[in-house]
């Protein structure tokens, strides 16, 4: 088991390095020219100034040299400066990250909060009216793209009913002050972000429950009269295990989803930053965001791989090979 854990952790290093290389190459080798973009933006440069800017941005050096320099700086926490306003990228990210984290955690809570009970319901009584109704509703939820869902939610709850604010973060925009004031602003974006994940997560939970519920040990415990909380105490882990795997599927799609949702709801997080970086051709910022998102996915997967054997006693003995085959 320790061999498997060590292998996973050791291999994460090269993978992270590869991720940084891809992120760098994608945004620096391809034909777009940040200088040209700046000139387009309405700030004419003299040839002298352009050359100075080029050497400042190290655009006159070979790609691998630039990569090495960038990597070295990034390892020390210096991700360069935004081409847009010259602020350090790391600072911009630090400002936006809590917003995205808050939104994604809220959405994750909403996804699990709905997917678990519905999945259990569908697995226990697959032919009941409620199971069928919820299934239909979830298919509907998963074919409505989040940007349309955003329009519908805003139209209904903000414009028609005026229950919740339309977008933004209200007065709390200057920091995370006043959680009570922030909550109404969080509801619609979190709901919108969760909507896309519900169908997938519920289907997954249903499959996992459908496999675990008929287990002989469970039937035996039931036959001995174990009910409700007692059953949960002994079998909760068995039912919960597949849901740890589920996290690996949700995290990347949540990160993609929050780009759309943050843009639609004017949420000051990393996703909206990405859209602005791309529209404004702000290469250092976009590069840092791409790197950060891929690293977050890698971290989530690593966490799952480490958590799973820790939670599942069956994997501790000979299970390392089984886990291997799955990675």
């Amino acid at each position, binding site marked *: 088991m320790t061999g498997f854990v060590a292998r996973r952790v050791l*291999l994460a290093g090269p993978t992270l390095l590869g991720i940084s290389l891809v992120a760098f190459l994608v945004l620096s080798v*391809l*034909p777009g020219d940040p200088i040209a973009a700046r000139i387009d933006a309405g700030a004419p440069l003299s040839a002298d100034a352009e050359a100075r800017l080029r050497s400042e941005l190290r655009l006159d050096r070979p790609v691998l040299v630039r990569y090495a320099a960038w990597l070295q700086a990034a390892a020390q926490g210096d991700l360069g400066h935004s081409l847009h306003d010259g602020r350090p990228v790391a600072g911009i990210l630090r400002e936006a990250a809590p917003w995205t984290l808050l939104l994604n955690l809220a959405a994750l809570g909403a996804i699990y909060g709905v997917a678990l009970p519905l999945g259990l319901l569908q697995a226990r009584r697959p032919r009941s009216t409620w199971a069928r109704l919820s299934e239909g509703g979830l298919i509907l939820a998963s*074919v409505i793209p989040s940007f349309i869902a955003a329009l519908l939610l805003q139209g209904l709850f903000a414009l028609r009913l005026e229950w919740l604010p339309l977008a933004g973060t209200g007065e709390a925009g200057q920091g995370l002050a006043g959680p009570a004031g922030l909550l109404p602003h969080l509801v619609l974006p979190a709901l919108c972000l969760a909507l896309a994940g519900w169908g997938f997560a519920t289907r997954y939970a249903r499959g996992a429950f459908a496999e675990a519920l008929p287990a002989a040990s469970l039937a035996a415990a039931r036959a001995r009269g174990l009910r409700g909380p007692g059953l949960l105490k002994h079998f909760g882990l068995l039912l919960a295990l597949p849901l740890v795997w589920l996290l*690996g599927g949700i995290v990347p799609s949540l990160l993609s*989803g929050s780009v759309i949702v943050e843009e639609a709801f004017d949420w000051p997080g990393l996703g909206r930053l990405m*859209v602005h970086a791309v529209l404004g051709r702000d*290469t250092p910022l976009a590069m840092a965001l*791409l790197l950060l998102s891929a690293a977050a996915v890698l971290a989530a997967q690593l966490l799952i791989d480490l958590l799973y054997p820790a939670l599942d006693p069956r994997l501790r003995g000979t299970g390392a090979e089984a886990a291997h*085959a799955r990675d």
Partner: protein
Amino acid sequence: MHETDPATAGPVVAGPAAAGPAERAPGFRSRRAGLALLGGLGLLALAAPRLASEDPLLDLRLGSSHLVVPAPVPWSERRVRLDESLSPPSSRHLCGTDVLGRDVLARLLHGTRASLAIGFGATLAALLLGLLLGGTAALRPGPVDLALGRVIEILGCFPPLLLALSLVAAAGQRGLLPILVGIAAGRTAAAARFVRAETLRLQAAPFWLAARASGAGPWQAAWRHLLPLLETPLLVQASFGIAQAVLLESALGFLGLGVEPPNPSWGQMIGDGRGVAAVAWWTVAYPAGALALTLTLLLRKVDSRVW
């Protein structure tokens, strides 16, 4: 294990058994109907330039004879008529017009092309590349597997939308290619992971041993005996991939970073219509409906686990 697909993730594993005739019987007709509808969408996409153009007449050439009929949509997708801005659905414009007075139905038909081209193109590329990467990794254990495993893992770490956005930013121009590559990368990782895991698993099966014992090399045995087994689950995975690609393309269009305007795509139409949706529902409702219909058809294919 990092599967995001309902097609392959989870304890319910798609296998040849699921496609058996006994399980196929109920609802088989509706599956066929779904496939026919998808095919119809493809045909619409191919025929869009002829169905919806400035030409009021449609010339159906049958061999040497001509059959001239009134064109179903006598508007092109980029004909701007400001005097007809935001006119509601009528016999003149069946689905109404957008802010610039362009016919929504014509744009919808032409938008099918962008959405389906990206969906099918990205998925096909991902499937082929995934087969190659995953198959090679499984058949060449040791350093090759380790190295390819890293490549697959790296590809799988990038959230597809962020990668596509970065590629669009880097290329400095919109167009199909950056979107296609960005979407294909993520799908490649999923396909490769699945192919590798299945190949490793099936190598323990007796048929593999029998094939190898009778002198077939690993590649030959994989080609003859493994690939047919992977076909159905891969196709199911592909329909999920197409759905995801169509969705991503529309998201990029919504952000204003999709195909180059004035070429239409569904997402772009929704993004354009967002500001006027309150007074002109048809600018958003029709493309959103088309998108939802396509996604429903594709996801039903995933759920049924057969093609």
